[in-house]
């Protein structure tokens, strides 16, 4: 097993601080999961299930050495969402995912956060690629994956729990042959 720090680095982008999640992020994150915005992810969730989901995300830092980065607005300190490196138990591959608050949407923030987080995963863990699992009706996430240069991979192993979900593959250009 590779040694890892179990902790996210702090990454500064033009408009955001990307950092290790803290307890204060739980409430705004859970509010998203308890809203209709979570419809593509099995939501809206009950409060306790939203807490379990938050735990499931952050626990992967000590267990796997990667996990969610909190997207915090530099100017205001506002919680904007999570940019997530994840490997859900039962999923065939590790994933790059994102969950944003309603106020954060439509501003290019997920794009701005995804690039350095993906690059950190590739560089730190040496991954050749990572996928994004996206519900077919989630047009905004499909557009973001494509803008990030990911390609629809129809040969990838399906997710047992969501057989219809689209699988977009992000390739590490540093290790690609």
């Amino acid at each position: 097993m590779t040694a890892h720090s179990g902790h996210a680095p702090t990454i500064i982008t033009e408009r955001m601080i990307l950092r290790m999640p803290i307890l204060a992020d739980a409430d705004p994150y859970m509010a998203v999961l308890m809203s209709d915005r979570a419809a593509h992810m099995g939501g809206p969730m009950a409060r306790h299930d939203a807490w379990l989901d938050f735990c499931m995300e952050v626990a992967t830092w000590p267990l796997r050495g990667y996990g969610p980065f909190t997207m915090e607005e530099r100017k205001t300190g506002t919680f904007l969402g999570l940019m997530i490196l994840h490997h859900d138990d039962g999923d065939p591959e590790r994933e790059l995912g994102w969950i944003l608050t309603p106020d954060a949407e439509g501003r290019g923030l997920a794009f701005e956060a995804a690039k350095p987080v993906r690059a950190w995963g590739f560089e730190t863990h040496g991954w050749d690629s990572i996928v994004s699992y996206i519900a077919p009706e989630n047009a905004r996430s499909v557009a973001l994956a494509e803008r990030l240069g990911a390609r629809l991979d129809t040969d990838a192993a399906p997710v047992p729990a969501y057989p219809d979900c689209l699988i977009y593959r992000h390739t590490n250009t540093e290790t690609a042959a």
Partner: protein
Amino acid sequence: MIATLTTQRLTLRAPTMADFPVHADIFMSDRARYMDGPVAENRTWNQFACDVAGWVVQGFGYWTVTDRTSDEVLGFTGTAHPPCYPEREIGWMVTQTAEGKGIAFEAARAVLNHTLGPDCPTLVSYVDPPNIRSIALAERLGATLDPTAAAPSPGDLVYRHLDDGGQS
């Protein structure tokens, strides 16, 4: 950093991915009947993650309890304070093979000694009334029933642990 605790027979250390199957087996078994279980296989990761996540965002969580000599995983103990709990709780679970040997007592005693102090003067244990083994253990650990304390679910017994300098 998660501190490693050592007792006469046990090591309490940070959970790792390799401990997950043991944790999942406990939660899928009848042993979880007093912990809102048994749970379906697709819920076991959530349970394990919750016991670990506290370390990340709250500074406390669950340890994996292992045999000092053989490294065998015997169970899990530690503290947790999810939003649905009125207070921070110490809990424990051991595998079938570890039961009846005082393992949970020895491990929980180490957690109490490590945790109780000026920063954390009290902990509770929420116990389902028919869980007589856990009631006996809570009492052996020096906890007393607190009938005035709020419980997460109606009917749960609340056992209160106070800092006694590790005397009990």
